[in-house]
């Protein structure tokens, strides 16, 4: 459905994409994950026809992007990271009189579709207000509505919920879930919880390259690494320095008095960890082996790449 082969894109000295390749199957919600500056937006811009790669090729529904006579734009709906609108228009006007006719949807059909979408994205009550007065969250909902006007087979969503409050985020993610199976969605985000919630497939990108691509559950299974969570009442003192230097430890993160220690082998690590904690006389409240989350996999992979 979406195929990218070896895309390279540079901006001056910055190599935004460095041989990116990926494959998105039909009907899946594909989480395009990466830290800021990884190349997600550049990829989206190339797929939308707004930018050209220096080299490499990309296809949507077997149509090659950028090839003369092969315009994919009627097949895709695009939501940029910061959707922009004409402030003097109302949402209803924008969808019914401007966007819908661009896809050859006119008259009553356009009016019905506009109202339906405004209802879906929760902007029905603001249908006749000027977009100029909208909050960022409202603009993002509006952006989603305009991407869905022509019921495209492919949706490219760049950080679709980043500007929304928790309730709005939940609603939009639920809406994305309803499109699963009918629409192929490439969803770029740096919020792992969103990917965990709605995505079937995950591609992790860093420094313009795809590090890994797999079904979400396969990814967790493949990269499942034993992880210890240790909670200490009075902090960790010098123990953190010691643990980071150990060969059996691959990554350590600390937040809210809890250290998460990724290890290569649980049996090899368990004993020295417990001994070291006892040696440092830390007030340990909890010592637990837990299942790693997608976030741990992401941090591990992007950390390794960096």
């Amino acid at each position, binding site marked *: 459905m979406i195929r990218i082969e070896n895309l390279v894109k540079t901006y001056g000295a910055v190599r935004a994409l460095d041989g990116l390749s990926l494959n998105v199957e039909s009907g899946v919600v594909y989480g395009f994950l990466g830290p800021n500056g990884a190349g997600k937006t550049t990829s989206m811009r190339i797929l939308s026809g*707004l*930018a*050209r790669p220096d080299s490499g090729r990309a296809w949507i529904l077997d149509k090659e992007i950028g090839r003369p006579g092969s315009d994919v734009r009627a097949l*895709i709906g695009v939501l*940029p990271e910061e*959707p*922009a*609108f004409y402030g003097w228009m109302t949402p209803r006007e924008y969808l019914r*009189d401007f966007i819908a*006719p661009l896809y050859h949807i006119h008259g009553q059909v356009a009016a019905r579709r506009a109202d339906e979408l405004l209802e879906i994205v929760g902007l029905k009550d603001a249908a006749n207000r000027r977009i100029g007065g909208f909050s960022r969250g409202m603009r993002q909902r509006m952006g989603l509505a305009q991407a869905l006007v022509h019921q495209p087979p492919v949706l490219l969503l760049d950080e679709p919920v980043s500007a929304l409050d928790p309730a709005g985020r939940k609603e939009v993610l639920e809406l994305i879930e309803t499109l699963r199976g009918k629409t192929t969605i490439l969803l770029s985000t740096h919020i792992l919880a969103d990917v965990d919630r709605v995505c079937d497939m995950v591609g992790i990108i860093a420094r313009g390259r795809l590090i890994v691509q797999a079904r979400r559950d396969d990814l967790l299974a493949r990269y499942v690494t034993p992880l210890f969570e240790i909670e200490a009442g009075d902090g960790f003192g010098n123990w953190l320095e010691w643990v980071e230097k150990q060969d059996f430890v691959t990554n350590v993160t600390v937040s809210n008095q809890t250290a998460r220690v990724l290890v290569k082998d649980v049996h090899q690590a368990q004993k020295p960890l417990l001994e070291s904690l006892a040696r440092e006389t830390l007030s340990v409240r909890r010592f637990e082996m837990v299942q790693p989350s997608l976030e741990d996999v992401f941090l591990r992979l992007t950390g390794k790449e960096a």
Partner: protein
Amino acid sequence: MFQTLLAKEFREQWRTWKMIVFLAVFLITGIVSPVLAKYTPELLKSIPNLPAGLAEFIPTPTVADSVAQYLKNTEQFGILLVILLTMGVMAQEKERGTAAMLLAKPVSRSAVILAKWLTGMTILLAGLLVDGLACLAYTLVLFEPLPFGAFWTMNLLLFVYLGVYLTVALTASSLARSQAIAAAGAFGGLIVLLILGSLPRVSDYMPGQLATWGGSLVLKGDLTAWPALGVAAGIIVLALVIACLRFEREEI
């Protein structure tokens, strides 16, 4: 698709008051020109303590003064207005991000430029129409009827002349990534055209000559400026082609 883009442009010009302000200024220009031509000499004569005999040297205004005022005011305000109307139209879309939203949809980039150009030219034509009608009416009341055919031919020449500035400003806007650069480009184009128009011999071929030709037509002179008309049309076409080609290749 072109119709949708065109409708949006007209609606935008109307809803953001640009079209109304544009037409109002042209209307005022059309009214004020014959009035100024008629009453400026009388105002001068009414200045207290005017040196003896000077009043006799102030000529009685004629219809030629009305036409000259009209040409001068329409030219000056017209150039300023078309540049202000047009210089931001493309750069603003790029700067605000609306261009990226639009161009991710199945629209031709050249169509976007042409819709903006056609909108600007239509508003300019409407402006000259209200300007001309007002001038015709006030000249009729204050002086005598103007030769109808010659007057509107003069306005058509003004339309082409001002169209050059409008197209150059639009091209500057499509080449620029920000409104500030677009404004600099538009006024830079204006300065270049004005300098070329003031050079001996070269001026005969520059668009400014169209206003002189128009005035001559109304006042039954024998001046023509066909080369200037050709150059003006050439500048418009060339500027449009540059704008379209550049925008087709631009990354948004």
